[in-house]
């Protein structure tokens, strides 16, 4: 028999006896009954404590009074736990009496054993009801045989086990729980963690920076002027970019992650500052600060519709998840926010004095919230279904708005050189902030990215791209390559290691993970 006070582990904080017991439990739960029994006999440690085994045999044998007495004897239980267990035992006692037609004993059990317990009164009254009609307590009017009782008793005893505390019992799946806790904690503190795969428990988990984009893998130079906006399609297979050269370009992402030009969208008269992919990626919206809103077909690259006219200036736009409704915000205070369908019919509009200049607009991917930036400093979050809204007022000018893929968070870039993250539902009283980049004069945009949306990327006026892990307010990577201000970034939603950046230097850079030396050598050979 093991000495209960022997310790294991280098720090000596774990009791050997407990460790073996949870090992035995683990073997049983994995289905290795023979091994489990073998370990029990070899170690002399039993998975079920002797008190527990006694309780079990009393319960399964239907010795209710004995079982109840035993529960009163156990010292390691709180009154609450004891009453919960007593209730389960007494209730089965009561129901079996009823089932056998022994009404007077059942009544006595109800009154003497159950009624006095600290349990929900409604449960007690429901049982009283059972004296009148068995059907209502889940039993039909058949006569019950002992086999049916036996099965029920086994099932119920598992419920009893759950309310009895350690050390009499061991919490379910304890070893798995402990290991998972450690692994989760390691993943949480892994700042470069950028995948949804399982991790190995052979080593302590820690990703290296090769998990995130850190170097230029391609430079796209098709634009003839400053590139102001980039965004990947939702399926990650295309990239759209727009420029002060008055065009937008759709690029295709090939199998090997190289991008090629697919369509050049020409017909705007002025710089195009914003594009938006429809959720089903079949259509693209383009607009500019002094421009109308155009809807393009992605496959053919043709313009399907133009919204508004020279008098109607759309600053930004967003889609609803059904890909049939879009909203746009205008920099003209009188126009407010309009919702259209793809044919140009107006569905709804929010106008009026309370609708000042809108500079940015977004819809959460689940379609529940419409978020807009108005008067340059206020974030208005509208719950579309309930038509309720709340406003967050920032102190500095907001230059971009992005929403996370899980619809729970939003980030805004401020010209005070900070990015603020708020939660959509409104539980955060203070925002989370991210700093390190440069932003004073221009519109610089930021975005979410990575496998779980765990990263934030932003452009910067010092021509670099900045990457943060959401948990840390200082950047984890600063990417150099562009020669002028980086205006906008977009992280590929499906290829988690691909990032695109748009710059005043007229190029778009595609960033990928650093390829390790050995791999690079192998490739060259």
């Amino acid at each position, binding site marked *: 028999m093991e000495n209960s006070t022997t310790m294991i582990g280098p720090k000596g904080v774990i009791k050997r006896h407990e460790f073996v017991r949870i090992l035995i439990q683990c073997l049983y739960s994995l289905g290795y009954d023979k091994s489990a029994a073998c370990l029990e006999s070899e170690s002399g440690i039993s998975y079920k404590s002797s008190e527990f085994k006694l309780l079990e045999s009393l319960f399964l044998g239907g010795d209710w009074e004995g079982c109840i007495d035993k529960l009163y004897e156990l010292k390691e239980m709180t009154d609450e736990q004891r009453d919960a267990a007593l209730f389960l035992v007494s209730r089965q006692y009561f129901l079996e009496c009823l089932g056998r037609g022994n009404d*007077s004993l059942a009544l006595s059990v109800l*009154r003497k054993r159950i009624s006095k317990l600290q349990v929900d009164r409604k449960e007690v*009254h429901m*049982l*009283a*009801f059972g*004296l*009148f*009609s068995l059907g209502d307590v889940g039993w039909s009017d058949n006569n019950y045989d002992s086999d049916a009782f036996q099965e029920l008793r086994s099932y119920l005893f598992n419920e009893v086990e759950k309310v009895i505390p350690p050390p009499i019992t061991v919490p379910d799946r304890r070893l798995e729980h402990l290991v998972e806790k450690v692994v989760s904690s390691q993943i949480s503190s892994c700042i470069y963690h950028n995948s949804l795969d399982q991790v190995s428990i052979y080593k302590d988990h820690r990703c290296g920076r090769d998990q995130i984009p850190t170097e230029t893998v391609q430079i796209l130079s098709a634009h003839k002027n400053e590139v102001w906006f980039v965004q990947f399609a939702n399926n990650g297979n295309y990239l759209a970019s727009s420029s002060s050269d008055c065009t937008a370009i759709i690029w295709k992402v090939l199998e090997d992650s190289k991008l090629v030009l697919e369509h050049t969208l020409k017909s705007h008269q002025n710089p195009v500052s914003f594009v938006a992919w429809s959720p089903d990626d079949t259509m693209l919206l383009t607009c500019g600060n002094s421009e109308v809103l155009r809807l393009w077909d992605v496959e053919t690259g043709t313009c399907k519709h133009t919204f508004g006219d020279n008098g109607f200036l759309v600053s930004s736009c967003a889609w609803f998840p059904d890909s049939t409704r879009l909203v746009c915000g205008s920099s003209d205070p009188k126009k407010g926010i309009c919702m259209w369908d793809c044919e140009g019919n107006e569905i709804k509009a929010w106008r009026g004095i309370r609708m000042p200049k809108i500079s940015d607009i977004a819809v959460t991917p689940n379609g529940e919230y419409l978020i807009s930036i108005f008067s340059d400093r206020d974030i208005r979050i509208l719950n579309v279904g309930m038509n309720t809204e709340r406003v967050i007022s920032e102190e500095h000018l907001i230059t971009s708005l992005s929403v996370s893929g899980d619809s729970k968070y939003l980030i805004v870039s401020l010209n005070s050189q900070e990015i603020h993250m708020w939660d959509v539902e409104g539980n955060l009283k203070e925002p989370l902030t991210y700093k390190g980049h440069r932003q004073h004069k221009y519109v610089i945009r930021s975005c979410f990215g990575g496998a779980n949306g765990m990263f934030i990327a932003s452009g910067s006026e010092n021509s670099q791209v900045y990457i943060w892990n959401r948990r840390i307010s200082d950047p984890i990577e600063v990417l150099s390559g562009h020669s002028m201000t980086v205006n906008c970034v977009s992280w590929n939603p499906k290829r988690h290691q691909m990032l695109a950046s748009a710059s005043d230097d007229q190029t778009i850079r595609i960033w990928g993970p650093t390829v390790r030396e050995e791999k690079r050598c192998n490739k060259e050979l």
Partner: protein
Amino acid sequence: MDVDPRQYEQIKINDKDTHNIILSYLIHDCYKDTLESLVASTGLKVSATHLEDMEKRKRILHFALEGNALDAIHLTEQMAPDLLENNKDLLFDLLSLHFVELLCSRKCTEAIEFGKAKLTPFGKVQKYCEKLEEFMGLLAYEEPEKSPMFHLLSLEYRQHVVDNLNRAILEHARMPRYSELERIIQQATVVRQCLSDELGKDVLLPFSLKDFLKRS
């Protein structure tokens, strides 16, 4: 604001009205002996059938108040055959009075039998389920007086059921459910309350009949 009591003197009251008010009250609450006295003193007329009905009603209510709901039900059915049929709520309340009576006399097996036979059928209708649960729940307690539902055993509760029964029987006989006296007091209270609310004076306490009568 309070009306100057001297203004009351401007209103003349008819003797006949006063007598009728008192009469209707006595009939409503079955005060047979007092009624006969009043009739003798004032020379008012009350028909024999009225008196007979009042006597019957009195017996019914008395049984119910004592807890003898079965006799009360039986007599009610004799006097007003379809009344309880059309008034299931009342029937339920009366049956449950009997149930409670059995429990209090510690006749548990009888109570269970009675409950199974008479009360559980009501359980098919949603609105009775909660009440049914409360009554059934009383069984779980060796001393029902100490249960959370002890109010179901109280005299107040029985009185409440009896009042409902009384009003139902009166209505059935096309007599007023509320006596004139009750109506007058109710009206005065509501009107005073309305006035207070309208004038919006927080300084005015809610209308208290007792205080009002004391003052006058």
